């Protein structure tokens, strides 16, 4: 029998890969086996193109309790407490059905966290869209934001931070990355490692329907809207809440040996992963799986991506207790199989053998590809453009340029979005969204808190993937440092175009290298992550977007600071003085260009600046800190001012290092710099500390109650007007 090209396309395998399957098995695969190989060997599950690259990441460190490979990474914050966290994409489903796509994205990442035995305590999200001027984008934006809130609010997990960025490259392929953070007792971490021949495999939660069949393969092809054929998954956050509580309760018993949620590729991947990581076999009977629909065959049951399901491996003697807990939470559970000793995944349909394949074939034998990347000449040219050849901004235009930037969708207030997310539930939120550069969430029962933030400036990565990759790590960490936290580890989601194109592979490879180098330097190991490739539409890739989520630790929660300066404060710039408009929001706004070299990044300086700010905050010398990102120095200062305050700024000490140019001085972007606000009495001590830390420190202004922003004795603008512009950007 020769397999048709059609049938191979259905499971997204190449002919060469198919031949490998035949060789491994020593025979033609049965239909369900073929479907399972397709899913497990997809980029989404098998990391065919990315696995070799991910080896570059540093993944170990004194705090790492669980690195990549499990449902989530875990870091130790002392006192036996672990923080479990991970970020994941739901880009393709969100392009097709924004609300449900985003909602089920949140559901999936939350399951990853409680599967580890951790209680989820915070959600973040990182979003990328086309221009809001387009009604289709507006629809996607509203749907995605609605779905994130709809699911997270119902679960009762606060959504505390994130980032949003707009660029035309995302018009046909928005990015929706969701991150979840949980707390776990380090001695009670659960893993997805089946063990104990004879132990029972229990499936609990939603009934299985035809939804999302081939979701994993669909996430590994281009043009989401056209290629999607499966049934859209509709999330049930209510059921997930029951599942969450029940699973955490079940893990309090001694009866559970392994737990694995059903995500991409459904039962297929959860059974295969449980077996393979435990070095055991698993045999299940699909007839034992309760269905939502009639007439489903084994293939459909194995590849269904129905949400809100969990696979639990239970000791036989504990079954009754475990099921009693599920019953108490009104959850349906089925014993669908057991652990075997032969290392094979065996899928029965009653008496019929549908699959009998060593688990390792699906996992360890998954092919990997190392490709040759080539930089796109178009992008290299764009980077080579000398931005200083553009005419400088005249002083008369500073006000207009500032208003335009404040209202830019990439800079303006996120309040209209953030307000639709419950961020006060669980009574742990010390710094909610908008209050600081990162959210600060206390750890109940201790004096500690964590700070969390996602970030990635995709323009920098586009123009220079290596430097941009470093920036993503450094900026997320810097935001966390601005609250006083010490960044301890990170998670990441690599959203890129097709790796099969040399230009796409180049971006992926270089960005990962940059991230790895920055993560190593900043001592923030990568403990979890996710890869989403083939983010293209109409043959155009999205901006390369390696989203980074950083977790930082604050030993004494009472020292955490936000970014609002108080009246009378002195504003000081710590770190880099020189900025560039290369790759800046200003360049895009004012000149309509994405060009020039992005800001350079000196990792040594970055480390010193972050450490200095952490120390200054811990010793209560500063009461607010804010990093300067998109929009530059002036935008950052305004974001630190309450509407009733004003400020007198004097940037003259920075002028020469910015070539005397106003555009660079006011709106240029740079890494390794943070504005801090301190009482005048602290300034001397801060200077001493900065000197010892070898960090440049410059006084750039004072906060007053004038209600006016006064710049270099030349320009005055009412703060409330600027706030109006800032508040307007995302409104209809």
């Amino acid at each position, binding site marked *: 029998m020769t397999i048709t090209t059609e049938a191979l396309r259905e499971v997204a395998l190449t002919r060469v890969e198919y031949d490998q399957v035949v060789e491994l098995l020593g025979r033609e695969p049965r239909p369900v086996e073929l479907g399972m190989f397709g899913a497990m060997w997809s980029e989404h599950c098998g990391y065919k193109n990315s696995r070799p690259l991910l080896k570059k990441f540093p993944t170990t460190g004194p705090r790492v309790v669980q690195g990549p490979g499990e449902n989530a990474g875990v870091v130790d914050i002392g006192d036996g407490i672990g923080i479990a966290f991970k970020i994941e994409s739901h880009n393709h489903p969100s392009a097709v059905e924004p609300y449900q796509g985003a909602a089920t994205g949140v559901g999936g990442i939350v399951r990853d966290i409680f599967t580890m035995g951790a209680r989820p305590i915070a959600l973040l999200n990182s979003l990328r869209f086309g221009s809001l001027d387009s009604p289709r984008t507006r629809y996607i934006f509203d749907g995605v934001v609605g779905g994130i809130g709809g699911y997270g609010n*119902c679960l009762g997990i606060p959504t505390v931070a994130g980032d949003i960025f707009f660029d035309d490259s995302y018009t046909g392929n928005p990015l929706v990355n969701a991150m979840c953070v949980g707390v776990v007792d380090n001695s009670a971490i659960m893993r997805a490692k089946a063990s104990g021949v004879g132990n029972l495999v229990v499936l609990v939660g939603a009934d299985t329907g035809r939804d999302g069949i081939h979701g994993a393969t669909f996430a590994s092809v281009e043009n989401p809207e056209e290629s999607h054929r499966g049934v859209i998954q509709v999330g049930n956050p*209510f059921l997930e809440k029951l599942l969450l509580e029940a699973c955490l309760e079940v893990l309090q018993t001694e009866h559970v040996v392994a737990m694995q949620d059903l995500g991409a590729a459904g039962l297929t991947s959860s059974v295969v992963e449980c077996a393979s990581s435990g070095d055991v076999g698993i045999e299940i009977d699909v007839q034992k799986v309760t269905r939502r629909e009639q007439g489903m065959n084994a293939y459909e049951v194995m590849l269904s991506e129905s949400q809100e399901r969990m696979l639990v491996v239970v000791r036989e003697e504990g079954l009754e207790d475990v099921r009693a807990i599920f019953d108490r939470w009104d959850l349906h559970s089925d014993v669908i199989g057991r652990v075997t000793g032969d290392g094979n995944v065996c899928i029965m349909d009653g008496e019929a053998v549908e699959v009998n394949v060593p688990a390792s074939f699906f996992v360890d034998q998954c092919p990997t590809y190392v490709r040759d990347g080539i930089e796109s000449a178009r992008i290299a040219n764009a980077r080579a453009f000398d931005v200083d050849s553009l005419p400088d901004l005249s002083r008369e235009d500073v006000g207009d340029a500032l208003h335009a930037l404040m209202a830019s969708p990439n800079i303006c207030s996120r309040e209209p979005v953030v307000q639709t997310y419950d961020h006060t539930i669980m009574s742990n939120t010390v710094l909610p969204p908008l209050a600081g550069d990162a959210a600060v969430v206390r750890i109940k029962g201790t004096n500690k808190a964590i700070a969390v933030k996602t970030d990635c400036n995709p323009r920098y990565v586009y123009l220079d993937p290596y430097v941009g990759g470093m920036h993503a790590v450094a900026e997320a960490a810097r935001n966390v440092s601005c609250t006083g936290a010490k960044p301890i580890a990170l998670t990441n989601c690599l959203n890129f175009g097709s790796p099969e194109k040399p230009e796409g592979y180049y971006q992926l490879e270089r960005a990962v290298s940059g991230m790895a180098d920055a993560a190593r330097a900043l001592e923030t190991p990568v403990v979890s992550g996710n890869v989403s490739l083939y983010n293209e539409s109409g043959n155009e890739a999205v901006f390369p977007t390696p989203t980074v989520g950083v977790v930082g630790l604050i030993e004494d929660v009472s020292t955490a600071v936000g970014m609002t300066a108080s009246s009378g404060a002195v504003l000081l710039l710590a770190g880099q003085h020189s900025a560039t408009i290369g790759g800046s929001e200003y360049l895009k706004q004012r000149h309509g260009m994405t060009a020039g070299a992005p800001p350079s990044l000196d990792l040594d300086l970055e480390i010193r600046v972050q450490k200095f700010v952490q120390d200054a905050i811990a010793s209560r010398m500063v009461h607010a800190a804010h990093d300067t990102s998109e929009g530059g120095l002036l935008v950052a200062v305004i974001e630190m001012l309450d509407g009733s305050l004003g400020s007198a700024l004097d940037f003259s000490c920075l002028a020469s290092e910015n070539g005397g140019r106003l555009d660079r001085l006011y709106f240029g972007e740079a890494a390794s710099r943070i504005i801090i606000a301190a009482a005048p009495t602290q300034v001397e001590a801060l200077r001493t500390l900065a000197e010892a830390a070898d960090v440049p420190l410059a006084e750039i202004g004072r906060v007053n109650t004038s209600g006016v922003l006064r710049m270099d004795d030349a320009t005055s603008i009412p703060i409330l007007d600027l706030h109006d512009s800032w508040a307007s950007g995302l409104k209809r």
Partner: protein
Amino acid sequence: MRFGVVTFPGSNGDHDALSAIELGLQQEVAPVWHKDRSVDGFDALIIPGGFSYGDYLRAGAIARFSPIMEAVTDFAQQGGPILGICNGFQVLAEAGLAPGVLLRNANLSFSCRWVHTRVETGRTAFSNGLQPGTVLRLPIAHGEGRFFVTPEELAHLEERQQIVFRYCDEYGNDDPLANPNGSTDSIAGVCNERGNVVALMPHPERAYDPLLGGDEGLQILGAVLRSGVEAAVGR
């Protein structure tokens, strides 16, 4: 005093209520399961927020039929103090233990932020001892909190002093812009005629520690501890 906090399937404010009573108020507290049939041994009950049964039909509509609700109703009839918060308000309203209905927010979107509310009467179990006019800063987090009654019912509620909290500006003044959900007459919280059952949309149980942005919720939770509650609600 011993508090009970009812957990329905989909409740998610139960943990906060338990923490607020234990850590903030430093009183005894225990969870109550929706399938239980008794509330014996509790001096006060909290029906917490969340999305009971996913709020899939109408907020609170399915939960009001839970087995525990019979005992809750008896407790209410005996004058026992009950506080319904957010989804708990919706459950009590569906059960007829609190007046009015709660509709989708006028702006159609979920709203999470801090608001100011003004105490309108100190005669209830959860406003006992608070001066009318007292302004409390509390978080809200809801999508269906638009309290609705007809003008006749409103007059009736006014007359019987059943309006306990109103949204207001930070100084306690009426301000339509301070009404976050379009509720009738800016009503944020109400009580039954007797005053022992109080229901409100804002979350006092999330405001029990200055570290979390404020602790003024303790004034509501703690009102029931003050002497004179029995007299206030005629128990």
